[in-house]
Every structure is written in C-alpha cells, then in structure tokens.
C-alpha cells in the first residue's frame, strides 16, 4: 500500500515509550494474576485455536504459600526472552532464504503479539514460528506449515494452533527496507555522482540494510515510522562511508515534502533510534539459563512433561513433503538445552 499516512500501522502500532512500558507492564501483570490464581501461566492452545487457562496445580494449597509459588519473570527477563527469540526468528528466515520483507513482517508481528501477552503465557518459540508462517502468507510467499515445521524439526500443528491467536487483523506492515531503496534513489539525484562512483552509493545502501537489521531487533519499530528507521540506518551508514552532508540532505527532504517536522525534531528521532541500537543487549548464557529455569516453573512444566507432550502432539499424521531441500537445518530452537555451548555457538549451529 502506498500510503503509510492512512495505514493501520501508523494509526494503531506506533507508540510512545510510556505507552510501550505500560503495555509490557500490563501484560506481565495479567500473567502474574494467572500465576496467582492457577499456579502456572502457560495458556493452552487447542487444535482449533481455543485458549484456556492452565489446569490448577494439584498442590494448590502449597501455591497459596507465596514462597513455593513460581517466581514471575521480571520485565527485563521478559525482554531478554523476546530478544533471544527475535534473533532465532532472523536465523530461521535466513535459513529459508526468505526475503528481508518477510523477516521484517514476522518480527513486527512477534513484537505486536508480545504487547498483548507475556512470554510467560505463550511460548515464544511457537509464536515465532507462527509469525514467520503468517508473514509468508501475507507477503505472497506461501510456505506450508508442514514445510516450515519440517525444515526446523518442529511440529507444524503447533504453528497452526497458534495462527488464530497471533493473527492480528492489522496485517499490512511497512518495513524500512523499501524506504531505504527510495532514499538511496533520491540521494543519487541529490548529490549527483559520476558513473565510476556509483559503487559508493551501493556501499551506503548495503551498510544501511545491515543497520536496519539491527534496528529491527530493538523496540524502535514500535516507536518510530519506517521512514525514520530508514533514515537512522542511512545516517549510520553514511558515517562509515562519508558520502554526503547528512544534515543538509535531511533539510532538503523536509523542504521538499513541506513537512510539519523541523530538522531538529527529525534529528532527535534519529538519535533516539541510534540509542536503541546502542543499548541493545543480548542475554548472556548465564542469564538465559536462569530465565529458562524460572520460565519453566511458571509454565508449570517439568522437562519430563514437555517431552511427553511433544510425543503426543507429533502423533497426528503428516504427509511426506517432497521438498527436502529446506530440511537440512535441525537446530534447537528452545533455550532449554542451553547448558551446552554459548548462545553464539547456538546461533552458529545453523551454518
């Protein structure tokens, strides 16, 4: 769609920092309430997409005792979980060689989902896969759930079960990648370069795309419109390649669009996007182990239960897919087995 100005993305999904904090807090509070009431937080998602609260734990008397009840994740721990799975999401998309647009759409669906729910309520692994599946459908790059599930050794029924709950109806998402393409074209006219210098613009383009990949992993896409994310990425890229006077370029954009924004407002936004990237933290192995232990007790699952469940779920029949090419990557998508190597090693396990 051409017009971001009238989009649901702009109307419903760009927030202030305060609104975002409130949403994360509210989602966490709802999970804590469930924990207090039922002794566990994980929502059951049935084959038909129905949601139900966890079965009250048998030893519910013990649960009344605050000390034995599982401890909820902190806001920071919830963030770490999302960060971990957003990285996984990028990996899975890279592994399937999906276009950037699909990756960006899936990431945004994932972020939007966890504005409503806590990771304590819905397993981010399942939600991540569902978001990728839905993004493929939306971006006309249909991959069957079975193929997707198979490619990453996950039960595809989980993906389908979750589609209904993660499927928000504001489906069109504006990613910054197209904005970058547009701005780079525009720069060509703004600072005419000789033919032999075209590689300079190509370089700034490439670096900017990599910058956007980083921005997409922060909360910035929920706070700023895609055009500003693109400009922030281009400004960082320009600092490396030193192609043009960026502030002069920003002024030129604003004057041509007769924008209501001043250049200092725009620069302030770009600085703020930069600081999100600088402040980005990936959880350490120790953090992940700790969070995962807490999360498992919140979910009311012991590892024994989990494996039994999986066995049950994978029983339903699945036809053999002829497409074997994408099934070479079986990786561990959960962080349950993180006692093995470092997170980096797990990230690398794909290749």
């Amino acid at each position, binding site marked *: *769609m051409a017009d971001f100005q009238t*989009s649901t993305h702009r109307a419903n999904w760009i927030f202030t920092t305060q609104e975002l904090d409130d949403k994360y807090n509210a989602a966490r509070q*709802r999970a804590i309430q469930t924990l207090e009431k039922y002794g566990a937080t994980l929502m059951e998602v049935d084959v038909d*997409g129905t949601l139900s609260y966890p079965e009250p734990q048998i030893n519910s008397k013990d649960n009344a005792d605050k000390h034995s009840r599982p401890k909820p994740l902190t806001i920071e721990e919830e963030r770490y979980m999302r960060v971990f799975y957003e990285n996984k999401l990028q990996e899975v998309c890279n592994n399937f060689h999906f276009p950037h647009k699909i990756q960006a759409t899936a990431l945004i669906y994932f972020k939007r989902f966890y504005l*409503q729910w806590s990771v304590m309520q819905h397993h981010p692994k399942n939600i991540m896969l569902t978001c990728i599946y839905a993004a493929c459908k*939306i971006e006309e790059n*249909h991959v069957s759930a*079975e193929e997707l599930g198979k490619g990453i050794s996950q039960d595809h029924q989980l993906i389908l079960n979750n589609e*209904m709950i993660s499927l928000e*109806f504001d489906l069109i998402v504006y990613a910054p990648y197209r904005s970058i393409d547009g701005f780079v074209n525009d720069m060509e006219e703004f600072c005419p370069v000789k033919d032999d210098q075209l590689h300079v613009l190509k370089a700034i383009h490439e670096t900017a795309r990599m910058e956007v990949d980083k921005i997409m992993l922060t909360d910035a896409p929920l706070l700023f419109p895609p055009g500003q994310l693109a400009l922030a990425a281009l400004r960082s890229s320009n600092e490396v390649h030193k192609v043009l006077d960026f502030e002069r370029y920003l002024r030129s954009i604003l004057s041509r669009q007769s924008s209501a924004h001043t250049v200092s407002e725009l620069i302030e936004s770009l600085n703020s996007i930069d600081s999100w990237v600088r402040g980005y933290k990936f959880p350490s192995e120790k953090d992940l182990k700790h969070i995962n232990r807490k999360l498992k007790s919140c979910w009311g699952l012991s590892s024994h239960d989990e494996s039994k469940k999986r066995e049950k779920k994978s029983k339903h029949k699945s036809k053999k897919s002829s497409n074997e090419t994408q099934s070479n990557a079986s990786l561990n998508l959960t962080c349950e087995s993180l006692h093995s190597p470092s997170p980096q090693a797990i990230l690398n396990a794909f290749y």
Partner: protein
Amino acid sequence: MGDTNSNNGNNTNTNNKKPEWLQQYDLLGKIGEGTYGLVFLARIKSSTNRGKSIAIKKFKQSKDGDGVSPTAIREIMLLREISHENVVKLVNVHINHVDMSLYLAFDYAEHDLYEIIRHHRDKVNQPINQYTVKSFLWQLLNGLNYLHSNWIIHRDLKPSNILVMGEGDEQGVVKIADFGLARIYQAPLKSLSDNGVVVTIWYRAPELLLGAKHYTSAVDMWAVGCIFAELLTLKPLFQGAEVKATPNPFQLDQLDKIFKVLGHPTLEKWPTLANLPHWHQDVQHIQGHNDNTGLNSVVHLNIKSPAYDLLSKMLEYDPRKRITAAQALEHEYDFLSSFSLSLSLSSPMNQRISAHTSSKA
C-alpha cells in the same frame, strides 16, 4: 476490531453454545454462496445500531489443512487499510475457534449490478435510465481510482461484485466488493490461473487472454469497459465460452468474441503484442484480419458521442494506452448531468441516485 484480544480476560472455550461474537447479531438467513464460503444476512441487536443490516461472509478453512484461507487474509488485510465511500466497508472480523472459520462482517448492500441489469432485461424490458448508468459508472470509477492510487488492483471486477446500497442513508451508493483476488502492485503478481484460481473470463483483458504474466491496473479498466457496455445494452459484451482445463488454458473463444466486435489487434497499434505468449498460437485465428461488427453498432451508440469515445478508450487493446480511472473521471462524457438528476431525487449527496426505485418494482 479483532475479538481475539478479548481472550485476555476470560475463558473462551465456547464449544457448546453460540459463539459470543455471534450473539450481537440476529441471523436472518443465507443470501449467497461463493467459492470461498457462504454469505449470511444479519441484523445488529445493540441499541446504538439497532436493526442495521450486515452481510456476514463465512470463509471455509482452506482445504489443504493449512490454516486460515489466504483469500480471507488478503481480503482482510486490504480492506483494513482502505476506506472510501465507493468501496465496501468491513465492519468486523470474527474467528470461530470451533471450526477455525473466519467471518467477515460488511455493511449490507441490497443490490448489485448483476441483479439490476437482469431486472431491467427480464422484468421491466427496458434499458437502465442513462443518468443512472452515468452515476453507476462514475461511482465505480471513483472507487477504482481510489484503489489504483493506493496501488491496489482488484482483478475480478464484474457486475455481481459491484454492489449498490438499498434504502437507507446511502441509498444508490455504489460499493466495489470482493477483494479476495485483489493485490498490491509491489507484491509479485502471479497470474491467477497459476494460483489455480478460476474467475469468469467475460471481463478479462485481452493481454491476460494472450498470456501476459503481469497484471497492471489496466486490467480493471477493461472490465469497467465491459460493465459499462453491459449497463447500456443489458447483455454481457463479450460472452465467450470458457475452456475449463488446468492450468491456464488458452481461451480462444473469448478472444474471438472480442475480435468480432473490436477487430483484430495489430502490431502497429499494440507494439508489445508480439511478446505475448499466445500471440503465436493458432496464428490463423489470432492474427487474422476479418471484418468486425463494430463496437458502436453493438452498443447502439453514435460513433461521435462522448459515451462511445469513453467506452472505446476503456476497450483500447494496448494496456499502456488504455484510459486510466483518473482520466476517465475527467472525460467529457458529462458525468455532471447525472448529479443534477440525483439532486432532484431529494438526496443531498451529489452522487446518490435511486437505485432502489430503478431495480425493484
């Protein structure tokens, strides 16, 4: 919109009773059936909109067991982003978790052009009032211009997809409907037949019949031309017999019907013709030069009339030369005269005319 959010607070396991969302409506009955599911008529119960009619389109779960139907998803994603008085309004989306079906609730439009045309042909036996035709066409173009300027191609325009509001605030207002095949330009547009989709061929543009792989907004304008002619004559303009085979059969009869009226396209008038896959197929029929009946005599229009000029520009062979919706709205075909009529029909809004009186006795 989006009942899924309400799941936060309560258990929604409603297997045994009427789903909660459905309780806000009185279901009146089935009013239609399409490839993708059923359409029901309902009335809103709530006090704010009491009695307002709603059409509920139920999408079946996709057959291959692959989650929510992509057609439903496309329709939702596009309609959620757009808002125009000549485009159907999606008022709500519901999910029935029990059978995984999706329900789309639209403002109900009582009439459609298919029914209005049939009514005039079979019941009243007289043409549609020329001012009404102008109003329908102008509103259709107005909605289409909005869609095209938002980079959306409809791809399945035909009389039954052009709705007309019945009695009420918006009486006589045209609404373009059925976005299940619509696409945003920038997305790669696979040809419909590649997707295994069958649409009626009577309104299909010649470049598609000749095997063009890429859709442009010009395909919608060809369909508008066909609909315009049908409004004038009450008969489909190019009524070809469809070859039913998969995938992507060559629709020679449909092309033949077009050639008989418009003559054969030539490379001089349509230079990119030679690049189209089917141009070299059945050379005798495709590249022939037999006499044609002439569009003007088929639609009974004077060759010098503005109506004929506009119609022939919509039915231009070369998609790059075909008139756009924006240009058509500016055409000298005196659209304004339909407004003076509508004003006299007591509606304050200039594009409203009484379709009610013209289509229902």
